[in-house]
């Protein structure tokens, strides 16, 4: 069972002048065997550093990593039974595709016949059998990606680590490779850990998403829960496109009150008791508004700023006093800049966060 346990994992970079930067801040995480875990977050959030520490390519400042309950802090990368796929493929340019795939097995002194058999098996699965004699420079981006996958697969590792492996592919190929990765995960008896900054990849591939920011884990959950029950405003804003609208206000007489509108909070399941004047942040996804004709105290009266026609739907970027609010609607409206738009949040689709801690106030 290739479950991974991460306990108080920390990475601190030091320069020669005693300046330090804490890239990963004492994180804890449990990854089950055969999980497809996606680390997602903005650049510099520590996701790749965490992956590299699991791989053994980066020294651990503090904390422990266990694979199959074995502490691997001081185990060489080659002895961790893991394989890694890199963002830029990292294929050896002077070797043929066959030699690239076989390289790891040759280093492990596997006999030639077994190597040949395994390379052929993997190349058949990845549909690169015809390219085995070619050099990496003669391959397309998608083929290089497959070779990189093949190099990892041929070793039959217990854990696959992937560092933004799809980011160099074009949009169409990325969708295709995503589907292939899902299929590979289904067929292989292995744990997949995938790093990306692309939320679409995270949502489509993972059965568990780890959202990171500034070296800390913001939330670990299934894609559905990450989207529907964000633990804090960072997760709420990071997942979903266009991002969730976050409107500041206060709690007053069981209502969310802002300068522009008042929203009853009666049907919400809160994890705490709120007092009047408690600062709140109301989160509403752009698609969770309905356009209405008549304004009342519970509606938002917005001023249209920009409209974006996306084909099957429309994004309308508006202003509400000083704040920006984005509306997504499948009905196409012909708004001009400065037009008035009246919208109402859909019942049961709102999120509520503490105005100070920015953590959710809803029961998860």
């Amino acid at each position: 069972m290739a479950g991974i346990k991460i306990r108080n994992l920390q990475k601190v970079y030091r320069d020669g002048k005693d300046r330090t930067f804490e890239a990963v801040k004492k994180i804890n995480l449990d990854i089950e065997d055969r999980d497809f875990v996606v680390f997602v977050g903005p650049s510099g959030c520590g996701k790749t550093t965490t992956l590299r520490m699991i791989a053994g390519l980066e020294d651990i400042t503090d904390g422990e990593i266990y694979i199959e309950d074995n502490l691997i802090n001081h185990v060489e990368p080659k002895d961790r039974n893991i394989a890694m796929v890199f963002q830029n493929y990292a294929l050896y340019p002077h070797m043929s595709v066959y030699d690239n795939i076989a390289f790891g097995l040759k280093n492990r002194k596997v006999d030639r016949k077994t190597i040949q058999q395994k390379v052929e098996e993997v190349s058949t699965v990845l549909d690169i059998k015809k390219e085995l004699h070619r050099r990496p420079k003669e391959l397309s981006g998608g083929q290089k990606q497959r070779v990189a996958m093949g190099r990892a697969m041929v070793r039959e590792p217990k854990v696959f680590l992937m560092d933004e492996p799809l980011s160099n592919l074009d949009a169409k190929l990325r969708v295709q490779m995503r589907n292939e990765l899902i299929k590979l995960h289904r067929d292989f008896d292995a744990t997949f850990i995938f790093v990306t900054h692309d939320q679409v990849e995270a949502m489509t591939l993972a059965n568990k998403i780890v959202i990171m920011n500034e070296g800390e884990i913001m939330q670990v959950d299934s894609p559905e829960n990450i989207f529907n029950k964000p633990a804090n405003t960072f997760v709420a804003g990071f997942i979903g496109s266009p991002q969730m609208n976050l409107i500041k206000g206060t709690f007053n007489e069981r209502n969310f009150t802002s300068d522009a509108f008042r929203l009853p909070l009666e049907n919400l399941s809160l994890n705490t008791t709120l007092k009047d004047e408690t600062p709140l942040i109301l989160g509403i996804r752009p698609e969770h508004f309905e356009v209405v004709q008549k304004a009342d105290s519970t509606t938002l009266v917005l001023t249209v700023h920009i409209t974006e026609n996306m084909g099957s739907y429309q994004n309308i970027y508006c202003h509400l006093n000083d704040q920006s609010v984005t509306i997504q609607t499948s009905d196409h409206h012909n708004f001009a800049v400065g037009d008035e738009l009246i919208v109402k949040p859909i019942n049961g689709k709102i999120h509520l966060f503490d105005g100070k801690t920015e953590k959710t106030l809803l029961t998860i």
Partner: protein
Amino acid sequence: MDILQKRKCLKFFTYIVILIGAFLMIMPFIWMLSTSFKEPLKVYEVPIKWIPEVFNFKNYTRLFTDYNFSLYMKNSLKICLLNIVGNILSCSLTAYAFAFCKHKYKNRLFLLLLATMMLPGVVTFFPQFILFNYIGWYGTLLPLWVPAFTGSAFYIFLLRQFFLTIPTELIDAAKMDGTSDLKILFQIVLPMSKPAIVVIIIYNFMAVWNDFFGPLIYIIREDQRTVAVALNYLKSTYEGTSSIPIVMAASTLLIIPSVLIYFFGQSYVSKGIVFKGVDK
């Protein structure tokens, strides 16, 4: 005169200046080659006959029959080869450590290494000579090639800079594939550094092949002489016009390997390197 005509004019004069420069540079070589085929009495003929009436190959054959030139060439080649192997081995190992290994004082040590490049050769010459004499290497070929196995600051710098252009992901991938640092150097890094290696081969070959000072100081026996030293002995054996064609023949032979290695090496280096295995 419009701008196009001005550009054409400028280009024309640039070519003229380059051609004059090239002609001045190549003229002594043409004279050397031409003289190496002449009879001694025809050397100072005026006007100069660039193409001899009769090609006298005797000057070349005499170098091998009368002056043991094949042995001198063999000695030179042997020293060149050992120097190249020594430098590539020692410098690549050091450059790999400076490029890829983690060490607290790595950059300071590298600066110290670079600082040794500022020392003029004459400063280290005497201590080196005393040392080699003390350990009994005077009069042997050892001082001419063993130091190459201890590295050269310039070649280490050259290789280290080239290694730094190799994406670290390739090194990481090799580590994940279970490769040791030594194997990474010889199986991944060096095959990808052919242009830098070729540059070292060219520089090192030219420096050692044409080296006169080192062999002159350390070599005593005639059978240990290198081509450069032998050429000097040849010149001093026959002073006067009679020796000039044969000295020119020896000089031609001396420069042929350098020209060939530079010619082929340069064409290889100019191809450059493109890391198609890694998308950047």
